[in-house]
């Protein structure tokens, strides 16, 4: 499985990355991509800045270990993970996940799984600055539940 993991400290262009990802494929018939971007508002009002912190080295090793599991579980030709750190503005891309497989089911499931991991288990810490100040964001119960549903999934652990 071809794989690329990038922790980006500056802006990236999801469309250009997806085009390059697709060009490198030989055998796939299905490509799934997910782009996450900064929401312009939260419950407390307008967000001016979203900041993401990571633990250089350990964060990357965690994602690579998770990709090892993905490679065992789904027959993918390639996977791409780009995750921003640093300061972002509303509408800036935060994360891009792309998966490619012979058929769509594996590509959909692997992308979904990857996002659940990135939301609730990868080593990133997110803070949001709005009119009411800066607040650290922790995963919602829903994020943990989304990640946990894979633990009971047939054929995987």
């Amino acid at each position: 499985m071809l794989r690329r993991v990038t922790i980006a400290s500056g802006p990236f262009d999801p469309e250009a990355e997806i085009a390059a990802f697709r060009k490198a494929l030989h055998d796939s018939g299905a490509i799934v991509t997910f782009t996450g971007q900064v929401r312009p508002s939260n419950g407390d009002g307008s967000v001016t800045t979203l900041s993401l912190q990571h633990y250089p080295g350990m964060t990357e090793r965690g994602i690579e270990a998770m990709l090892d599991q993905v490679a065992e579980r789904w027959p993918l030709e390639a996977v791409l993970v780009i995750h921003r750190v640093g300061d972002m503005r509303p509408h800036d891309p935060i994360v891009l996940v792309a998966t490619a497989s012979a058929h769509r089911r594996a590509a959909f499931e692997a992308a979904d799984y990857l996002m659940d991991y990135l939301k609730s288990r990868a080593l990133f810490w997110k803070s949001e600055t709005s009119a009411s100040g800066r607040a650290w964001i922790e995963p919602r119960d829903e994020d943990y539940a989304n990640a946990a549903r894979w633990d009971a999934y047939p054929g995987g652990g």
Partner: protein
Amino acid sequence: MAKLLFFGRLGDLAGGIERSVGLSEPHSVAALIGVLEAGDRLLGSALLEGRVRYALNGTIVDRDAMVADGDELAFLPPVSGG
């Protein structure tokens, strides 16, 4: 010196992401937190919260793990990516 790293909201409480401490002898993670707590009760109790994990030189450990000069100990609060 051992390097301590405080991520997320723990960095706000610690007054910065990184701090160095001189350890004349190895300390368990729990004992090290005790030292920090003596200087800052709020930080100490935050480091003991159940959802905070500890990484010693890049590996998740429990509070019994021993920290010596030259080690890097990171305090990891609940994560939030994507």
